[in-house]
């Protein structure tokens, strides 16, 4: 089992948006996708995931609708809204700037 890492404050929203870029997913699907994308390093607690989803929905960045899942059950699917797409692009750019700056500082001698 790989070593788990704590999520940095504020990055969960960015990761959720990223997981939805390829298409709508239901809540469990999002958590599974996050685990897969991070090679099982990030395991988002459901207690954080769902409030984050509702918060994003409340901000109009993602939309929710009921549909039928692959398993053939009624499920709530989350999808990026145009505003969410813009927000994702902006946050990703910001994160990259931040990460490279931190890296720059750490390499300095």
């Amino acid at each position: 089992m790989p070593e788990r890492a704590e999520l940095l404050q504020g990055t969960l929203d960015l990761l959720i948006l990223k997981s939805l870029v390829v298409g709508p997913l239901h809540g469990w699907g999002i958590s599974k996708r996050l685990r897969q994308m991070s090679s099982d390093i990030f395991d988002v607690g459901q207690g954080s995931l769902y409030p984050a989803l509702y918060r994003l929905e409340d901000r109009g960045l993602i939309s929710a609708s009921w549909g039928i899942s692959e398993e053939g059950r009624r499920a709530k699917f989350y999808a990026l809204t145009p505003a969410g797409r813009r927000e994702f692009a902006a946050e990703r750019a910001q994160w990259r700037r931040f990460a490279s700056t931190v890296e720059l500082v750490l390499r300095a001698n």
Partner: protein
Amino acid sequence: MPSLWRRLRALFARARIEREMREEMRQHVDLEAAELARTRGLAASEARRQALIAFGGVARFEEEHRDARGTRWLEDFARDLRYAARSLARSPAFTLSAAAVLALGIGSTTAIFSAVDAVVIARLPYPHDEQLVRIFEQNAPGHRWNISNADFLAVDAEQRSFSAVGSMRYGEVAISTGGDPRRAVVVRATSGFFRAIGVLAEHGRLLEPRDDVRGAPNVLVVTHEFAEHELGGAAAAVGKSVTVDGAAATVVGVLPPGYRDLAGARTDLWPSLQLETPTRRGPFQNAMVARLKEGVSLAAARGDLSAISRRLTERWSADFPDTLARLTPYTLRSVILRDAPRTLSIFSAAVLMVLLIAVANVASLMLVRVAGRSRELTLRAVLGASSGRIARLLITESVAVGALGAVLGIACAWVVLHALAWIGPVIPRLAEVTLDARAVGFAALVGIAAGAIIAVQPVAVLLRGAPASALRGGDREVGAGRGTHALRGALVSTQFALALPLLAGAGLLLNSFLRLERVDAGFDASPLLYVHLSLPRGAYADDAAINTFWTRAIARVRETPGIVDAGVSGEMPGEMSGDFDNFDLLDRPVPPGTSEPTTVAAPADAGFFTATRVPLLEGRLFTEGDSANAPPVIIVSRSWVRRFSRDRPALGRQIFQGGCRTCPPTTIVGVVGDVRFQGLAGEGDAMYNPTAQSRMRDANLFARTSGDPAREVERVRGALRSLDPALALDDAGPLEPRVRGTLAPQRHLATLLGGFAIAAVVLAAVGIFGMLSYLVESRRREIGVRVALGARRPEVIAMILRRGMAFAVPGAALGLAAALLSGRWLAGVLYDVGSADPATLIGVTLVLLLVALVACWLPARRAAGVAPMVALREE
């Protein structure tokens, strides 16, 4: 605003959303369990268990979920409200007393708010009421009087500022619709009056210019109510006949319902007014109402009228030399409201104080309640409630108390409003005041605001961390904490500071009223009766007919069994009804261009003075020789002499009366005691003309009886009816209650303010009593120790009294300063009492401190009764 919309939807669709949330959650767990079973080969039940563990606490999820949805505060509020209701219901004594105290304050404030709203703020019921003015003659600020025919005709012909001008003339005459004649107020008006007012007829027509012409048929307009009651319905009234002052008149129109008071004139009958062509400037007996043209200001109208006044003065300089007199417009509103804004501002200040005292009182109660619950609150804090959450709980509870107070307050407002209506004519239009939706809204707002204020101090104490110590000791130690006690003390001081000015105001009004009651009205009213008589023009056309009637009437009444003496006068003592007349001393005329002095002028016969026991001080009373053809004579009052004839003896001096310089001069033949015709607070100067020289159609007959005057009224009526059965005799009765009745407004003003003051003092006393009782209760142990160590009973009592009075005395001192500052407000309504009358102020301060002392005494005595061992064992 999609976010707000979402939140609102979330709030209302709460059940559905929660269901969906649970479903989503269940699916998550199912999917996770299936995944675990598949990837790790776990049994279904174990996979499910692990999935649940991974998911975390379900409750926490729900809570955080709600926070994210943003409706939490409202749900919390609903829960707080349920909690507050439960908690208040558990202590009904606190809840009811707090709500009742608040209801007193909120109710009084709401009632006064309604009155201010309806009387001062609301508009008059006429289109564009701001354009309506009353026009007076005025020669100095504050000295204005009615206008004359000459004035009106000049204004009507020359003015450029008004779209309509009208004249009206007030009269009390006999009227009849076929049955017995009765006295009624009628106001004759010209057609311009109705054009100016702008009210339309319900049936028929209002007065028109053709009715103003002399010789036009007698017509009148009646109110809807009169038509309904006396003429068989509003629709049927037009064309019917009403006998007014002995002459038949035809009803041409009916006013809409609710117009029994038109421009301040209270009457049911509006006969047409046909003005006589003036032969002199006076008499000034018409009221003028006009409507400003669109866009013309009051100042512009004043300039216009001023120019007309100058031309009028030139035209009539021979008999009216007052060059300072100007026709002056006032807004109709200001004329109708008169003193009402001031009276209402006095009441507003009074109820505001009652409200603040009530709030301070309940705030103090709440402080104790919170202190008493500090264990419970601390427990909540320990169990994880944030201090913000607890503060919200307290605020919700306070606001709930405030809201309950508002509900009870509306009932209380109804009572106060009726008490207010009982003041009667001090506040015009008060009958129209009702508790409408605005009043209810106002009460609700005041209640919620009061609740919020009440919560401030407990929350402040809470946030300072006072309850933290509660778990360590008993409840009492915290409640009696230094901070809480000082706060309660400050609240008690505040209540005393607020109660004193109120008590002082009530004391001053009471003092003023008692002085008015003791005023010597100048006549002995006790076994007297009066009958008001009005001789119609038709049957009493000339002086001879009028004089014959009075001579015969007095003689007939004197012969009536039970009657000792009788006389007649044109005026009614004690009422503000006196007619003024101007005069000039022959041997010391006023400088040219200045106004002649004026004084009450009343026709009277010798019997008036003897029957009412007005003393003759010098000279003689009237005799039969003072007839219509004899040289004019006059009797003056003692105050008249003091005011106008200081330089030489009045007897024998001659005057020109009513500005007539071509008339024969009038000689003073007698001086009598003062009679206060201008109300009991008025001056006593007056002149009396003999009835035979006065053409007196409207008069009061006074008869001194040997027994109870109430029993003789019918007999006197009978005697008069035998002379002329057509006379209206309904305005008659014993004189004393009527004279005393003139003081009713002052009595009611003092009573109402006294009521507010008593409420304030009781609340303040309850406040200090409550604080000290609590202090004694929470210090039983300390007191017990003192007693055990040898403190004697008086010492313990003194200690507690000192504690209480230490807050009452500074409060009262502050209140005294406030009373001195605010007393000027009352100056205008006080009679013979200064607004800073030391006796009154010292008196009420002592009363208030005495009340405080008694309120402190009760808990002090209980403290002194503390048995040391019992108190020590309790802890």
